[in-house]
């Protein structure tokens, strides 16, 4: 198998699994309990929180563990909007957000908030001047992702954060694709809330986090016990959280080196694609991009057919988004960048990870060429 869907999820690192195992077996105590058996689990959760905070240059007290990125996004938007209810009911977001943000914004719109979905340019970038121009006296929250999951384009979050800070508006960024992959300093970027997810950085599924800037206290996500400072109650999932912590620790150690290597793989891959397959188009921003994401529009053949063909050769890639039944639907993110529906339907995403090799990328180009020439 050649796995090129690392933006969907990544293989858990062996040392993550190793870190988790004791908490799935012997160390099963409830971390909230009083005895040392439980305190030892609590200490590991504290350590995981420290590792996650370190990646952001933040204090552990600003990290709240959630059951994933979607939960963190939902929480940030709903709580953020509610915190500023006195000020107004206007929210600004982009037209290329993940459904976790897009659909939460739509929900808020149905609750009486007014939501501005800002357009993006052909590379999927939000113009910070347009954000500035969209801010009104009643604007309470801005949510723009750190980098786009389909194109890899990195958004100008620092400039947006500065605009938000000047205007006294809360700023949320969905950093699910970037956390542990490229550095970000929320304090310096004027970020109020930041969402991340463990399984995108070789951690386990089902755990994520919300960073909350110092001095902010969002409303509770759930009502219950005192876990996560009472804001996100429910007995912790120590194995997942500790696995997340280990993934964050590893990412801090190897992020720069991995990013450089993956970036080279990506550049070579793009070059090979361009030279070997005529008529393709590489989408997104070649410079301001995540190290591993390559979005390609092919001249012919639908992405569904291509994906099945690649699958038959053991190559895992992705396209668009899936409906509840599992069928591929053309991506609204791609059409938001000015692509036609037809082009969006011929677009694949290859997302490279730390395990991919130059040989795998060469093989992928070879298979793509063969498949396209047969069709």
């Amino acid at each position, binding site marked *: 198998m050649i796995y090129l869907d690392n933006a969907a999820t990544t293989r858990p690192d062996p040392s993550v699994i190793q870190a988790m195992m004791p908490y799935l077996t012997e160390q099963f105590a409830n971390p909230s309990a009083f005895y040392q058996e439980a305190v030892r689990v609590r200490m590991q959760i504290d350590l995981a929180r420290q590792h996650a905070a370190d990646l952001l240059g933040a204090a552990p007290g600003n990290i709240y563990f959630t059951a994933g990125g979607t939960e963190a996004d939902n929480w940030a938007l709903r709580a953020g909007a509610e915190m500023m209810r006195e000020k107004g009911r206007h929210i600004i977001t982009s037209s290329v957000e993940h459904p976790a943000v897009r659909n939460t914004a739509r929900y808020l719109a149905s609750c009486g908030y007014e939501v501005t979905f800002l357009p993006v340019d052909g590379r999927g970038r939000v113009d910070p001047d347009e954000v500035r121009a969209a801010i009104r006296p009643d604007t309470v929250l801005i949510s723009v992702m750190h980098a786009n999951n389909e194109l890899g384009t990195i958004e100008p979050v620092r400039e947006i954060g500065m605009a938000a800070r000047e205007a006294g508006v809360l700023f949320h960024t969905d950093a699910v694709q970037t956390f542990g992959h490229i550095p970000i300093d929320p304090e310096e970027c004027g970020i109020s809330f930041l969402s991340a997810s463990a399984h995108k950085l070789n951690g386990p599924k089902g755990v994520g986090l919300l960073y909350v800037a110092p001095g902010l206290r969002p409303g509770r996500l759930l009502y219950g016990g005192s876990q996560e400072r009472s804001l996100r109650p429910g007995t912790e999932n120590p194995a997942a959280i500790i696995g997340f912590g280990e993934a964050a620790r590893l990412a801090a150690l190897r992020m720069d080196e991995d990013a450089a290597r993956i970036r080279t793989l990506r550049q070579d891959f793009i070059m090979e694609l361009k030279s070997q397959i005529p008529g393709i188009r590489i989408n997104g921003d070649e410079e301001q991009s995540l190290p591993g994401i390559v979005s390609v529009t092919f001249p012919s*053949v*639908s992405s*569904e*057919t291509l994906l*099945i*063909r690649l*699958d*038959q050769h053991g190559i895992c890639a992705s396209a668009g988004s899936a*409906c*509840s*039944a*599992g*069928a*591929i*639907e053309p991506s609204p993110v791609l059409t938001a960048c000015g692509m036609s529906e037809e082009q969006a339907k011929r677009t694949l995403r290859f997302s490279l990870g730390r395990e991919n090799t130059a040989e795998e990328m060469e093989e992928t180009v070879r298979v793509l060429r063969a498949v396209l020439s*047969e*069709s």
Partner: protein
Amino acid sequence: MAKVVAAMSGGVDSSVCAYLLKQQGYEVIGATMQIWQDDSSAVEREGSCCGASAVEDARRVAQCLDIPYYVMNFREDFSREVIDRFCAGYLEGITPNPCIMCNRYIKWGAFLERCRAIGADYIATGHYARIIRLPSGRLAIRRSVSAGKDQTYVLYSMTQEELAATLLPVGEYEKTRIREIAREAGLPTATRKDSQDICFIPDGRHERFLKEHTGTAGKSGRFLDLDGNVLGMHDGTAAFTIGQRKGLGIAAGRPVYVCRIDAAAGDVYVSDEETLFKREIIVDDLHYMGEERFEPDAVYMAKVRYSQKLVPCHVRYLKDDKLCVTFEDPVRAPTPGQAAVLYRDDWIAGGGTIVEGK
């Protein structure tokens, strides 16, 4: 090993279809065609195809058979080729058969094309029908061995090329035997209900669907008898089909039936049942299957709607692509838009679309 994509609706027939092909040694890929249901419609009905629960059922069968499985998206094709044509037909006052359109334009259209593009030699469905090679060398759809279940009618428009690329393993068995095979093989869909209605109109209320989908259920207007007397009013012609008795809401003192629809004028004509019986029909948009051309001297057996019995008839060409079919005994309510399928023995010679009954 020949590669075949089995269309899996989540029902028992298509599940057994995939199972039989696997048993026969084919390399089988399972695929569910996503054609209608969207994410927002949360209500799932047992027996409906292509909803999320149908996909789950199909996927369970694929797991059970250990075959690759994909959900393929045909929503746009289906909307354009089936739903739009269906609506346009109803609004013109005819009664199209969406299953025939789906077979013609989707299963043996976009689906076959996509399966070929992923390297398949054949596609297969769970229809109760068989494929026969005639002494002439032509291929034809042949009635299934199951006396109680015959789905050949909806397959009449298949071309020779399409027939050559199709496997119909279910047609070799009795309906009851198919359920037994499903049980014996431990397929999780063995007890699933059969689908009945038009898949995109599960409540059977065409006029409501048309109103939601196109904004109109046809011109509202008058109920008339054949002498031109006004018997009542209706809210739109698309609610009616030839031969319909129920739901007219007119008190004529005797049973009356829809016998003609003038969609342009908004008039629906009613009559006694006797008038519905026609000795002749005009058929166009001809398709040839077992025969290259129909023989005016031969006796054919005809079917003018899915649920009707075969009746003997003769044919006469009015034009190159227009046929007059004369029945030995008059046939009840042949309906414009439905197919007239002509059989020789137990195989399909060809067929066409009914334009009018006389």
